[in-house]
């Protein structure tokens, strides 16, 4: 606190010279003049800091104690201001700088939209522009609440809008309303996605093209979107019935369930061999400068019989096309150990069945109902020591999908 006030009011460093300096100190202290950082330079001289406004009264004390003093250093705000007054351009420049930064920061420089998903940010920006929020607008004229209201009015798909400023950046945060998807009315066929045996056909709209018991191929039309125009009843009037064969296209809809078969196959050898990581690994670090490599840490040869490498290359980010030709290589070597599994024929068969069923079921959609599962072992063929199993899964599922004209 004392330091701050002494800086604000200014202080000077004096060099005193005289025979009775102690007298000078006591007199100054008793008159209420604070002295600080008092150092003895030699027998006749001492240096001391005193407040700027005390220099004048000290002259009297100096005269009465036969001391001479000389100002060695000036410090503090008053002297700084004095210097600034002499260097008007510097002060003006500093002031101009601060003003300019303040002025420039009171404009909106960019407008950003966050939180949008399906909405076009341009649409929101256009609404904001209409409300006055655009690059170049003065910040003090913009009311966030007003802009929020205007955007919410203009863009009905927005459930909530928040506008806030981050420096010279305006950020429009939006939360979209979940609008119900408009009903699909585009004309289409219902076609088959899979081959199967039709079990039931339920037509909601359109003309059925298949019946129960039919075998269908993928891509075959199941329910046609072409409907013959209804012929008005004969007694409806004098209007001429439309010519036969005139068709109207509708959005076909319906449910076509069919029996579908899936096949899977798996083979399991009685003896299996391979390699797996042992969990032990060694780290090697190297530095590449230009075309030369230097080892930094780790053993070059970890002593593993077999291993695989994981290599990580770190380089400094390149600027334009100037890259630093220094790379750090971190190589982790994982040891591999061999393994061997021998299975009994029963074990191998069990496993093959499991795998074959899994393979067959992998293509079955979640909505399908599984009717039957079958497995049959295929007699061992040429490579002996192999159990081969085929699986068949029968399901009942909706095979229709929309295909637009």
């Amino acid at each position, binding site marked *: 606190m004392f330091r701050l006030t002494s800086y604000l009011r200014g202080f000077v460093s004096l060099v005193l010279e005289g025979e009775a300096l*102690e007298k000078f100190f006591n007199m100054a202290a008793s008159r209420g003049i604070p*002295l*600080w950082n008092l150092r003895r330079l030699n027998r006749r001289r001492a240096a001391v800091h005193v407040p700027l406004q005390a220099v004048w009264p000290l002259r009297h004390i100096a005269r009465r104690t036969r001391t001479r003093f000389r100002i060695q250093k000036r410090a503090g705000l008053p002297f700084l201001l004095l210097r600034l007054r002499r260097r008007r351009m510097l002060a003006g420049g500093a002031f101009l700088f601060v003003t300019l930064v303040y002025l420039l920061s009171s404009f909106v420089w960019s407008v950003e939209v966050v939180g949008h998903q399906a909405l076009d940010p341009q649409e929101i920006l256009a609404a904001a522009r209409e409300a006055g929020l655009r690059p170049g607008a003065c910040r003090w004229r913009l009311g966030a609440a007003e802009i929020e209201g205007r955007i919410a009015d203009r863009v009905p798909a927005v459930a909530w809008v928040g506008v806030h400023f981050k420096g010279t950046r305006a950020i429009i945060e939006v939360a979209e309303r979940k609008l119900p998807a408009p009903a699909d009315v585009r004309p289409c066929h219902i076609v088959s996605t899979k081959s199967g045996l039709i079990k039931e056909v339920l037509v909601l709209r359109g003309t059925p093209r298949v019946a129960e018991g039919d075998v269908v191929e993928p891509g075959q039309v199941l329910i046609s979107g072409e409907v013959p125009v209804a012929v008005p009843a004969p007694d409806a009037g004098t209007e001429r019935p439309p010519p036969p064969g005139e068709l109207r296209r509708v959005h076909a809809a319906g449910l076509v369930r069919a029996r579908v078969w899936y096949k899977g196959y798996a083979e399991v050898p009685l003896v299996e061999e391979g390699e797996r990581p042992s969990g032990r690994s060694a780290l090697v670090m190297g530095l590449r400068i230009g075309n030369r490599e230097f080892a930094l840490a780790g053993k070059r040869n970890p002593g593993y019989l077999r291993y695989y490498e994981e290599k990580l290359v770190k380089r400094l980010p390149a600027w334009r096309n100037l890259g630093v030709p220094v790379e750090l290589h971190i190589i982790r070597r994982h040891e591999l150990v061999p393994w061997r599994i021998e299975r009994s024929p029963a074990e191998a068969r069990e496993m093959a069945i499991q795998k074959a069923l899994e393979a067959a079921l992998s293509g079955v959609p979640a909505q399908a109902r599984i009717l039957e599962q079958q497995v049959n072992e295929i007699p061992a063929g040429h490579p002996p020591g192999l159990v081969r199993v085929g699986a068949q899964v029968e399901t009942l599922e909706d095979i229709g999908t929309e295909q637009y004209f």
Partner: protein
Amino acid sequence: MAWRDLRHRVRQRMADFLELPREVVLDLPKIVVVGDVQVLIENHRGIVAYGPDQVRVSVGEREVTVHGRELVLRHVRSEELLVEGRITGLSFR
């Protein structure tokens, strides 16, 4: 002298009885020594002599001498004095 001694004793008694700090009642200096780096002398009567190895301060009837090296008077006020440096000793005379 006897009169003065008596007054001194009465004052000391009163200070003890009223639990007042003695330096206030008896006009004694209060000296705070911080490690071997700082000595604060309150209620002094003026600097008698100041050199880099020795600061002599008048405290009423007696005199305090701070011995040390590179002694600097950090603050000089009418009521307190702050001496800094490498203090080696403090004596009364």
